[in-house]
Protein backbone atom coordinates (compact mmCIF):
# COMPACT_ATOMS: atom_id res chain seq x y z
CA UNK A 1 0.00 0.00 0.00
CA UNK A 2 1.37 3.41 -0.85
CA UNK A 3 -0.56 5.21 1.89
CA UNK A 4 -3.37 6.35 -0.35
CA UNK A 5 -4.16 3.62 -2.89
CA UNK A 6 -3.37 -0.06 -3.02
CA UNK A 7 -0.59 -1.01 -5.39
CA UNK A 8 -1.53 -3.40 -8.19
CA UNK A 9 0.99 -5.95 -6.93
CA UNK A 10 -0.91 -6.25 -3.65
CA UNK A 11 -4.19 -6.78 -5.51
CA UNK A 12 -2.53 -9.45 -7.60
CA UNK A 13 -1.20 -11.11 -4.45
CA UNK A 14 -4.67 -10.91 -2.96
CA UNK A 15 -6.02 -12.68 -6.03
CA UNK A 16 -3.53 -15.49 -5.40
CA UNK A 17 -4.28 -15.52 -1.67
CA UNK A 18 -0.65 -14.66 -1.10
CA UNK A 19 -0.96 -11.89 1.48
CA UNK A 20 1.34 -12.51 4.41
CA UNK A 21 -1.10 -11.91 7.29
CA UNK A 22 -4.84 -11.98 7.79
CA UNK A 23 -4.65 -8.47 9.20
CA UNK A 24 -3.03 -7.08 6.07
CA UNK A 25 -5.53 -8.91 3.90
CA UNK A 26 -8.48 -7.39 5.79
CA UNK A 27 -6.92 -3.97 5.57
CA UNK A 28 -6.58 -4.25 1.78
CA UNK A 29 -10.16 -5.49 1.40
CA UNK A 30 -11.47 -2.66 3.57
CA UNK A 31 -9.66 -0.11 1.44
CA UNK A 32 -10.97 -1.61 -1.79
CA UNK A 33 -14.49 -1.36 -0.42
CA UNK A 34 -14.11 2.27 0.46
CA UNK A 35 -11.99 3.60 -2.44
CA UNK A 36 -13.66 3.98 -5.86
CA UNK A 37 -10.39 4.05 -7.76
CA UNK A 38 -9.03 0.92 -6.10
CA UNK A 39 -12.39 -0.85 -6.40
CA UNK A 40 -12.44 -0.17 -10.15
CA UNK A 41 -8.86 -1.33 -10.49
CA UNK A 42 -9.59 -4.51 -8.55
CA UNK A 43 -12.74 -5.11 -10.63
CA UNK A 44 -10.61 -4.90 -13.81
CA UNK A 45 -8.23 -7.44 -12.40
CA UNK A 46 -11.14 -9.74 -11.56
CA UNK A 47 -12.50 -9.32 -15.11
CA UNK A 48 -9.13 -10.24 -16.53
CA UNK A 49 -8.99 -13.32 -14.33
CA UNK A 50 -12.43 -14.32 -15.63
CA UNK A 51 -11.07 -14.10 -19.16
CA UNK A 52 -8.19 -16.34 -18.16
CA UNK A 53 -10.74 -18.80 -16.78
CA UNK A 54 -12.65 -18.52 -20.07
CA UNK A 55 -9.54 -19.51 -21.99
CA UNK A 56 -8.94 -22.37 -19.58
CA UNK A 57 -12.48 -23.62 -20.13
CA UNK A 58 -12.57 -23.01 -23.86
CA UNK A 59 -9.12 -24.18 -24.92
CA UNK A 60 -9.57 -27.81 -24.29
CA UNK A 61 -8.77 -30.85 -26.29
CA UNK A 62 -11.68 -32.22 -28.23
CA UNK A 63 -10.11 -35.66 -28.36
CA UNK A 64 -8.08 -37.97 -26.17
CA UNK A 65 -4.52 -37.99 -27.49
CA UNK A 66 -3.27 -40.99 -25.52
CA UNK A 67 -4.01 -43.55 -28.24
CA UNK A 68 -2.55 -41.52 -31.08
CA UNK A 69 0.58 -40.62 -29.07
CA UNK A 70 1.39 -44.26 -28.30
CA UNK A 71 0.66 -45.29 -31.88
CA UNK A 72 2.82 -42.51 -33.32
CA UNK A 73 5.62 -43.25 -30.86
CA UNK A 74 5.68 -46.94 -31.86
CA UNK A 75 5.60 -46.01 -35.54
CA UNK A 76 8.57 -43.62 -35.14
CA UNK A 77 10.44 -46.25 -33.12
CA UNK A 78 9.99 -48.80 -35.90
CA UNK A 79 11.21 -46.27 -38.47
CA UNK A 80 14.26 -45.48 -36.33
CA UNK A 81 15.08 -49.19 -35.98
CA UNK A 82 14.76 -49.57 -39.73
CA UNK A 83 17.12 -46.67 -40.41
CA UNK A 84 19.60 -48.10 -37.90
CA UNK A 85 20.01 -51.33 -39.88
CA UNK A 86 19.86 -49.53 -43.23
CA UNK A 87 23.65 -49.13 -43.65
CA UNK A 88 24.18 -52.87 -43.20
CA UNK A 89 21.29 -53.72 -45.52
CA UNK A 90 22.52 -51.19 -48.09
CA UNK A 91 26.04 -52.62 -47.95
CA UNK A 92 24.70 -56.14 -48.43
CA UNK A 93 22.50 -55.05 -51.34
CA UNK A 94 25.38 -53.21 -53.00
CA UNK A 95 27.62 -56.24 -52.61
CA UNK A 96 25.03 -58.63 -53.99
CA UNK A 97 24.16 -56.32 -56.89
CA UNK A 98 27.78 -55.68 -57.75
CA UNK A 99 28.59 -59.36 -57.57
CA UNK A 100 25.51 -60.39 -59.55
CA UNK A 101 26.01 -57.68 -62.15
CA UNK A 102 29.61 -58.66 -62.60
CA UNK A 103 28.69 -62.33 -63.04
CA UNK A 104 25.91 -61.45 -65.42
CA UNK A 105 28.04 -59.08 -67.44
CA UNK A 106 30.95 -61.41 -67.60
CA UNK A 107 28.65 -64.14 -68.83
CA UNK A 108 28.36 -62.25 -72.08
CA UNK A 109 24.62 -61.67 -71.84
CA UNK A 110 24.85 -57.99 -71.06
CA UNK A 111 25.41 -55.41 -73.70
CA UNK A 112 25.32 -52.16 -71.76
CA UNK A 113 28.23 -49.98 -72.74
CA UNK A 114 27.86 -47.93 -69.59
CA UNK A 115 28.15 -50.99 -67.37
CA UNK A 116 30.96 -52.22 -69.49
CA UNK A 117 32.93 -49.03 -69.17
CA UNK A 118 32.27 -48.67 -65.45
CA UNK A 119 33.35 -52.23 -64.78
CA UNK A 120 36.44 -51.90 -66.89
CA UNK A 121 37.82 -49.14 -64.67
CA UNK A 122 37.52 -51.27 -61.54
CA UNK A 123 40.88 -52.58 -60.35
CA UNK A 124 41.32 -56.14 -61.47
CA UNK A 125 42.05 -58.60 -58.69
CA UNK A 126 42.19 -62.37 -58.72
CA UNK A 127 38.71 -62.78 -57.24
CA UNK A 128 37.13 -60.86 -60.08
CA UNK A 129 39.18 -62.90 -62.56
CA UNK A 130 37.96 -66.12 -60.96
CA UNK A 131 34.37 -64.86 -61.07
CA UNK A 132 34.95 -63.99 -64.70
CA UNK A 133 36.19 -67.49 -65.50
CA UNK A 134 33.35 -69.15 -63.57
CA UNK A 135 30.72 -67.04 -65.31
CA UNK A 136 32.26 -67.64 -68.72
CA UNK A 137 31.97 -71.38 -68.21
CA UNK A 138 28.27 -71.21 -67.33
CA UNK A 139 28.92 -72.27 -63.76
CA UNK A 140 26.79 -71.12 -60.82
CA UNK A 141 28.38 -69.37 -57.84
CA UNK A 142 26.91 -70.84 -54.66
CA UNK A 143 28.99 -69.39 -51.88
CA UNK A 144 31.73 -66.82 -51.36
CA UNK A 145 33.83 -67.07 -48.20
CA UNK A 146 37.09 -65.58 -47.06
CA UNK A 147 38.85 -68.76 -48.16
CA UNK A 148 37.18 -69.82 -51.38
CA UNK A 149 34.48 -69.35 -53.97
CA UNK A 150 32.22 -72.36 -54.26
CA UNK A 151 30.26 -73.11 -57.37
CA UNK A 152 28.57 -75.79 -59.41
CA UNK A 153 29.07 -76.72 -63.02
CA UNK A 154 28.04 -79.54 -65.31
CA UNK A 155 30.54 -82.33 -65.75
CA UNK A 156 30.91 -81.40 -69.40
CA UNK A 157 32.10 -77.90 -68.64
CA UNK A 158 34.25 -78.66 -65.62
CA UNK A 159 37.35 -79.66 -67.56
CA UNK A 160 37.43 -76.40 -69.49
CA UNK A 161 36.72 -74.44 -66.32
CA UNK A 162 39.52 -76.21 -64.51
CA UNK A 163 41.92 -75.53 -67.35
CA UNK A 164 41.12 -71.83 -67.30
CA UNK A 165 41.57 -71.67 -63.54
CA UNK A 166 45.15 -72.78 -64.22
CA UNK A 167 47.55 -72.48 -61.28
CA UNK A 168 44.83 -71.88 -58.68
CA UNK A 169 44.11 -74.36 -55.95
CA UNK A 170 40.83 -76.11 -56.68
CA UNK A 171 38.90 -78.91 -55.02
CA UNK A 172 35.78 -80.56 -56.39
CA UNK A 173 33.13 -83.13 -55.55
CA UNK A 174 30.32 -84.86 -57.41
CA UNK A 175 26.78 -83.91 -56.65
CA UNK A 176 24.78 -87.02 -55.85
CA UNK A 177 21.26 -87.52 -57.21
CA UNK A 178 18.33 -85.19 -56.68
CA UNK A 179 19.25 -84.45 -53.08
CA UNK A 180 22.13 -82.26 -54.17
CA UNK A 181 24.52 -83.68 -51.59
CA UNK A 182 28.10 -83.94 -52.66
CA UNK A 183 30.87 -86.44 -52.06
CA UNK A 184 34.08 -85.47 -50.31
CA UNK A 185 36.00 -82.73 -52.01
CA UNK A 186 39.02 -83.88 -53.91
CA UNK A 187 41.79 -81.39 -53.67
CA UNK A 188 44.24 -80.82 -56.40
CA UNK A 189 46.47 -78.10 -57.68
CA UNK A 190 47.54 -77.47 -61.22
CA UNK A 191 46.42 -79.72 -64.06
CA UNK A 192 43.48 -82.05 -63.76
CA UNK A 193 45.26 -85.10 -62.44
CA UNK A 194 42.18 -87.12 -61.50
CA UNK A 195 40.59 -87.23 -64.91
CA UNK A 196 40.07 -90.98 -64.80
CA UNK A 197 38.34 -90.72 -61.46
CA UNK A 198 36.17 -87.91 -62.76
CA UNK A 199 35.17 -89.89 -65.82
CA UNK A 200 34.26 -92.86 -63.62
CA UNK A 201 32.11 -90.69 -61.39
CA UNK A 202 30.28 -88.93 -64.20
CA UNK A 203 29.80 -92.22 -66.04
CA UNK A 204 30.32 -90.31 -69.19
CA UNK A 205 27.29 -88.20 -68.39
CA UNK A 206 28.41 -84.62 -69.07
CA UNK A 207 25.32 -83.10 -67.42
CA UNK A 208 26.18 -84.52 -64.00
CA UNK A 209 26.94 -81.65 -61.71
CA UNK A 210 30.26 -81.05 -60.04
CA UNK A 211 30.61 -78.87 -56.99
CA UNK A 212 33.94 -77.06 -56.92
CA UNK A 213 35.85 -74.64 -54.73
CA UNK A 214 38.44 -72.20 -55.98
CA UNK A 215 40.68 -71.16 -53.09
CA UNK A 216 41.93 -67.64 -52.70
CA UNK A 217 45.63 -67.06 -52.61
Amino acid at each position, binding site marked *: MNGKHIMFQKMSQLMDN*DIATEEEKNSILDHIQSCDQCRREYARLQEM*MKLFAGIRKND*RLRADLSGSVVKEYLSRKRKKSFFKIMPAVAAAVVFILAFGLNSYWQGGRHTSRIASSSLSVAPANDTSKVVDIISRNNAKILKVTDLYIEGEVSGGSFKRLRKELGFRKVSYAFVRGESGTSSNFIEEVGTLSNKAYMDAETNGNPSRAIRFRVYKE
Partner: protein
Amino acid sequence: MSNTEDIKNIEKVLAGDIEAFTPIIKKYQDMVFRYVYSKFNNYDEALDITQDIFIMAIEALKSFRGESKFSTWLYSIMINYCKNYRKKQNRFSLVSMNSSRDEDEYDIQYPDERERPEDEVIMNDSLRIMKEEIQNLPDDYRDILILRDIDGLSYNDISDTLGINLSNVKVRIHRGRELLKNRLYERGLI
Protein backbone atom coordinates in the same frame (compact mmCIF):
# COMPACT_ATOMS: atom_id res chain seq x y z
CA MET B 1 -3.16 -39.48 -9.91
CA SER B 2 -0.33 -38.46 -7.61
CA ASN B 3 3.34 -38.12 -8.42
CA THR B 4 3.84 -41.58 -6.86
CA GLU B 5 1.41 -43.05 -9.36
CA ASP B 6 3.20 -41.19 -12.16
CA ILE B 7 6.48 -42.77 -11.04
CA LYS B 8 4.92 -46.25 -10.95
CA ASN B 9 3.65 -45.82 -14.49
CA ILE B 10 7.01 -44.48 -15.64
CA GLU B 11 8.74 -47.55 -14.22
CA LYS B 12 6.36 -49.75 -16.19
CA VAL B 13 7.04 -47.79 -19.38
CA LEU B 14 10.79 -48.11 -18.85
CA ALA B 15 10.30 -51.85 -18.37
CA GLY B 16 8.74 -51.99 -21.84
CA ASP B 17 5.03 -51.51 -21.16
CA ILE B 18 4.39 -48.48 -23.35
CA GLU B 19 0.64 -48.61 -22.66
CA ALA B 20 1.41 -47.57 -19.07
CA PHE B 21 2.08 -44.09 -20.43
CA THR B 22 -1.60 -43.72 -21.38
CA PRO B 23 -2.83 -42.57 -17.92
CA ILE B 24 -0.01 -40.02 -17.83
CA ILE B 25 -1.06 -38.59 -21.18
CA LYS B 26 -4.70 -38.48 -20.08
CA LYS B 27 -3.71 -36.66 -16.92
CA TYR B 28 -1.53 -33.97 -18.50
CA GLN B 29 -2.79 -33.61 -22.06
CA ASP B 30 -5.20 -30.77 -21.32
CA MET B 31 -2.61 -28.82 -19.43
CA VAL B 32 0.03 -29.26 -22.13
CA PHE B 33 -2.47 -28.50 -24.88
CA ARG B 34 -3.68 -25.30 -23.18
CA TYR B 35 -0.14 -24.00 -22.83
CA VAL B 36 0.70 -24.79 -26.46
CA TYR B 37 -2.59 -23.44 -27.76
CA SER B 38 -2.14 -20.22 -25.79
CA LYS B 39 1.27 -19.78 -27.33
CA PHE B 40 0.52 -20.61 -30.93
CA ASN B 41 -3.19 -19.84 -31.26
CA ASN B 42 -3.89 -22.56 -33.81
CA TYR B 43 -5.87 -25.63 -32.77
CA ASP B 44 -4.43 -28.13 -35.26
CA GLU B 45 -0.89 -26.91 -34.78
CA ALA B 46 -1.32 -27.10 -31.01
CA LEU B 47 -2.65 -30.64 -31.35
CA ASP B 48 0.40 -31.78 -33.33
CA ILE B 49 2.80 -30.04 -30.97
CA THR B 50 1.10 -31.56 -27.92
CA GLN B 51 1.45 -35.00 -29.44
CA ASP B 52 5.12 -34.37 -30.24
CA ILE B 53 5.78 -33.19 -26.69
CA PHE B 54 4.44 -36.45 -25.25
CA ILE B 55 6.43 -38.51 -27.74
CA MET B 56 9.53 -36.56 -26.83
CA ALA B 57 8.76 -37.21 -23.16
CA ILE B 58 8.51 -40.98 -23.77
CA GLU B 59 11.79 -40.93 -25.66
CA ALA B 60 13.51 -38.94 -22.92
CA LEU B 61 11.93 -40.85 -20.05
CA LYS B 62 15.21 -42.59 -19.19
CA SER B 63 16.66 -39.21 -18.30
CA PHE B 64 13.95 -38.57 -15.67
CA ARG B 65 15.69 -39.21 -12.37
CA GLY B 66 12.79 -38.47 -10.06
CA GLU B 67 14.59 -35.55 -8.41
CA SER B 68 11.67 -33.28 -9.27
CA LYS B 69 8.00 -34.02 -9.75
CA PHE B 70 7.21 -35.68 -13.05
CA SER B 71 4.86 -32.83 -13.92
CA THR B 72 7.67 -30.31 -13.50
CA TRP B 73 9.92 -32.40 -15.72
CA LEU B 74 7.19 -32.66 -18.36
CA TYR B 75 6.50 -28.91 -18.25
CA SER B 76 10.22 -28.25 -18.80
CA ILE B 77 10.15 -30.40 -21.91
CA MET B 78 7.00 -28.60 -23.03
CA ILE B 79 8.51 -25.13 -22.57
CA ASN B 80 11.77 -26.02 -24.31
CA TYR B 81 9.94 -27.66 -27.17
CA CYS B 82 7.79 -24.57 -27.68
CA LYS B 83 10.82 -22.27 -27.53
CA ASN B 84 12.63 -24.31 -30.18
CA TYR B 85 9.49 -24.58 -32.25
CA ARG B 86 9.06 -20.83 -32.24
CA LYS B 87 12.71 -20.36 -33.27
CA LYS B 88 12.20 -22.74 -36.18
CA GLN B 89 9.01 -20.96 -37.08
CA ASN B 90 10.79 -17.60 -37.08
CA ARG B 91 13.52 -18.94 -39.32
CA PHE B 92 10.88 -20.24 -41.70
CA SER B 93 8.98 -16.96 -41.71
CA LEU B 94 12.05 -15.21 -43.12
CA VAL B 95 11.47 -16.95 -46.42
CA SER B 96 7.71 -17.20 -46.20
CA MET B 97 5.72 -15.28 -48.80
CA ASN B 98 2.98 -14.57 -46.30
CA SER B 99 3.83 -14.87 -42.64
CA SER B 100 0.89 -12.85 -41.33
CA ARG B 101 -1.91 -14.71 -39.62
CA ASP B 102 -5.30 -14.54 -41.22
CA GLU B 103 -7.93 -13.10 -38.90
CA ASP B 104 -10.33 -15.84 -39.95
CA GLU B 105 -8.07 -18.45 -38.40
CA TYR B 106 -9.41 -17.52 -35.01
CA ASP B 107 -12.91 -18.53 -36.02
CA ILE B 108 -12.07 -22.21 -36.03
CA GLN B 109 -10.56 -22.28 -32.61
CA TYR B 110 -13.68 -22.57 -30.56
CA PRO B 111 -16.02 -25.49 -30.10
CA ASP B 112 -19.20 -25.38 -32.12
CA GLU B 113 -21.43 -26.79 -29.43
CA ARG B 114 -23.00 -23.56 -28.15
CA GLU B 115 -25.65 -23.42 -25.48
CA ARG B 116 -26.39 -19.70 -25.95
CA PRO B 117 -25.04 -18.57 -29.32
CA GLU B 118 -25.13 -14.78 -28.60
CA ASP B 119 -23.21 -15.07 -25.32
CA GLU B 120 -20.85 -17.45 -26.96
CA VAL B 121 -20.09 -14.97 -29.76
CA ILE B 122 -19.43 -12.15 -27.27
CA MET B 123 -17.29 -14.42 -25.13
CA ASN B 124 -15.35 -15.67 -28.12
CA ASP B 125 -14.69 -12.12 -29.25
CA SER B 126 -13.45 -11.17 -25.77
CA LEU B 127 -11.26 -14.23 -25.63
CA ARG B 128 -9.87 -13.45 -29.06
CA ILE B 129 -8.78 -9.99 -27.90
CA MET B 130 -7.46 -11.45 -24.66
CA LYS B 131 -5.40 -13.99 -26.56
CA GLU B 132 -4.05 -11.34 -28.89
CA GLU B 133 -2.89 -9.32 -25.94
CA ILE B 134 -1.35 -12.38 -24.27
CA GLN B 135 0.51 -13.05 -27.51
CA ASN B 136 1.78 -9.47 -27.56
CA LEU B 137 3.28 -9.66 -24.08
CA PRO B 138 7.05 -9.95 -23.71
CA ASP B 139 8.12 -13.63 -23.55
CA ASP B 140 9.01 -13.50 -19.84
CA TYR B 141 5.54 -12.35 -18.89
CA ARG B 142 3.58 -14.35 -21.45
CA ASP B 143 4.98 -17.76 -20.51
CA ILE B 144 4.61 -17.25 -16.81
CA LEU B 145 1.02 -15.97 -17.07
CA ILE B 146 0.03 -18.95 -19.22
CA LEU B 147 1.51 -21.31 -16.63
CA ARG B 148 -0.05 -19.52 -13.69
CA ASP B 149 -3.40 -18.17 -14.88
CA ILE B 150 -4.33 -20.60 -17.64
CA ASP B 151 -2.67 -23.84 -16.53
CA GLY B 152 -3.01 -23.06 -12.83
CA LEU B 153 0.49 -24.06 -11.73
CA SER B 154 1.64 -23.12 -8.25
CA TYR B 155 4.42 -20.56 -7.71
CA ASN B 156 6.75 -23.40 -6.69
CA ASP B 157 6.02 -25.52 -9.75
CA ILE B 158 6.62 -22.50 -11.99
CA SER B 159 9.87 -21.80 -10.19
CA ASP B 160 11.03 -25.41 -10.72
CA THR B 161 9.82 -25.54 -14.31
CA LEU B 162 11.37 -22.28 -15.45
CA GLY B 163 14.40 -22.55 -13.18
CA ILE B 164 13.96 -19.11 -11.66
CA ASN B 165 13.67 -18.26 -7.98
CA LEU B 166 10.35 -17.89 -6.22
CA SER B 167 10.49 -14.13 -5.65
CA ASN B 168 11.30 -13.60 -9.32
CA VAL B 169 8.31 -15.75 -10.25
CA LYS B 170 6.00 -13.60 -8.15
CA VAL B 171 7.39 -10.34 -9.48
CA ARG B 172 6.96 -11.47 -13.07
CA ILE B 173 3.41 -12.68 -12.46
CA HIS B 174 2.29 -9.42 -10.87
CA ARG B 175 4.05 -7.22 -13.43
CA GLY B 176 2.76 -9.34 -16.28
CA ARG B 177 -0.78 -9.10 -14.99
CA GLU B 178 -0.49 -5.35 -14.59
CA LEU B 179 0.80 -4.89 -18.12
CA LEU B 180 -1.90 -7.14 -19.55
CA LYS B 181 -4.60 -5.44 -17.50
CA ASN B 182 -3.54 -2.02 -18.81
CA ARG B 183 -3.58 -3.21 -22.41
CA LEU B 184 -6.99 -4.84 -22.04
CA TYR B 185 -8.27 -1.64 -20.46
CA GLU B 186 -6.94 0.40 -23.38
CA ARG B 187 -8.83 -1.89 -25.75
CA GLY B 188 -12.01 -1.43 -23.73
CA LEU B 189 -12.29 -5.07 -22.79
CA ILE B 190 -12.26 -4.60 -19.03
